[in-house]
């Protein structure tokens, strides 16, 4: 398919850029792995005095963090770098160049550049996760692993859609070049179990729901403690938010084409 060819060409370009900026690649890989390690250390520190929190055992919480790194490793590699580019494009008024190309503009703003250095984080986290599953004796099955992959994909789509919708707002508020920082920090909430947020006021919990189920749901499915309602909710959210992202983006482009000079 046409977009597949385009995607492959773009991956090749990202590889070329790695070869040119080898120091850059090494540095990014180090910091992304560093953040991964830090996230595991901090959960270990936080739970050092409490063996069970929110219905999760300490081992389960550590594994939750490691699996968060697996999913985020993929997300940061393929999608996140594009959001930095998104902010730059809007800020410097380069949206016209995007709109002139006969390629879907949302595709251009979402899957155009890749930061393959985060794949190392994905790799190490995956290996470490397998190791922990074995030594913690977590009961997994082939089916639960399959569900983990399916739900993780939905999670990535959901996370992407939420961020894309919020970034689309910068077409109106062009000055908010640091919005992506805020979004990334808030979506970090997904590394904590969903149950942690349940005792907040219903209103706040409802708002946070799409975010907090992103990591918890696939991980619980993997542990065979998954709830059907959460899984269906995740899939539904992924579909709904993605559709909203497309509609909202088209709407924003109409505004851009009407208002700018």
């Amino acid at each position, binding site marked *: 398919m046409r977009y597949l060819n385009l995607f492959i060409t773009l991956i090749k370009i990202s590889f070329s850029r790695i070869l040119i900026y080898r120091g850059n690649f090494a540095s990014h890989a180090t910091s992304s792995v560093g953040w991964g390690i830090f996230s595991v250390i901090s959960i270990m520190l936080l739970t050092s*005095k409490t063996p069970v929190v929110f219905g999760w055992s300490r081992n389960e919480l550590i594994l939750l963090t490691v699996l968060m790194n697996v999913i985020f490793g993929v997300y940061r590699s393929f999608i996140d770098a594009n959001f930095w580019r998104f902010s730059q494009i809007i800020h410097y008024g380069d949206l016209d160049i995007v709109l002139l190309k006969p390629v879907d503009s949302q595709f251009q703003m979402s899957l155009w550049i890749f930061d393959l250095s985060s794949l190392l984080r994905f790799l190490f986290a995956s290996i470490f996760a397998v190791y922990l599953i074995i030594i913690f004796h977590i009961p997994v099955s082939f089916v639960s692993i399959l569900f983990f992959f399916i739900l993780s994909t939905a999670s990535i789509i959901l996370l992407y859609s939420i961020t894309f919708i919020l970034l689309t707002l910068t077409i109106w508020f062009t*000055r908010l070049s*640091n919005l992506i920082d805020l979004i990334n920090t*808030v979506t970090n909430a997904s590394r904590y179990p969903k149950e942690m947020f349940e005792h907040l006021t219903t209103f706040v919990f409802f708002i946070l729901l799409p975010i907090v189920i992103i990591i918890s749901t696939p991980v619980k499915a993997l542990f065979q403690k998954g709830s059907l309602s959460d899984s269906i909710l995740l899939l539904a959210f992924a579909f709904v938010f993605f559709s909203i992202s497309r509609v909202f983006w088209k709407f924003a482009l109409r505004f851009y084409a009407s208002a700018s000079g």
Partner: protein
Amino acid sequence: MLSAMSFQKANMRYFRIFFLQLQHAIEARSLSVVWFLTALTTPLLMLIFWSGATAAAGGRIFSWSYSNFATYYLFIALASSMLTAHIQEDVAFEDINKGNLSQYILKPFPYYTSKFLLELPWRLFQGSLAISGIVIVALFFKNLVSVTSSPIILLLAIVIAILAFILSFTFKMILGLLAFWFTEISGVMNVNEIIFSIASGTLIPLEFFPNNLRTLFEILPFSYMIYYPIIAFLGKLNTTSLLQVILMQLLWIFIFSLVYKFTWAKGRKTFTAVGL
């Protein structure tokens, strides 16, 4: 007579730069609000975590109750938005990598002073947002915010806060100056963020760490940028301890000033040699 006038003129110039930057900060108010919310998020998340954790541990962890945690993290939020300078990225990416440094070198102010004056309005603007937030919280949840009422301790705490800002600022400037020698500096900055999170008490109160790590953190400068200002305001230290804190801050500021001067002198030579 002449020197008095030129002194006044110099002050006017400083004042005008400050004012212009404050105007800029107000205009980019949405940017400030976003930064403020970003600084607020992590402490909030920690609060939510601890509320569940303390409940699970029967009300107190390591003698900290939930309201202790709440106060601590609210102040972390305030300290993060007000006391922590973010100048290192500006220095590394805008000034050194992109070459904007030239315009600073041409000005009659030291580079340090220029950046300081540029940074100050942002901090004040964000700090005022944070303080109003805390005042609102204090009004609604009276037991959550417990600040010391002794005027001497309050005064010393303010001194500590000011010194913390200077300390953080100087350190970040040095970090930014590393861009003179390393083209890819974001790795260093990320590592610094990680160490800072742990050693400054932003992630967990330093009390929670085992003793040998605590001693390490007491020697490192990071705890003096965030942790000690906070517990000073919370009234957890007596006058003697506060003076010790100030002494350590002054010592680290002195060390960093020397490092800065050295780094700046060497770096400037490199910069003009390349002729960016």
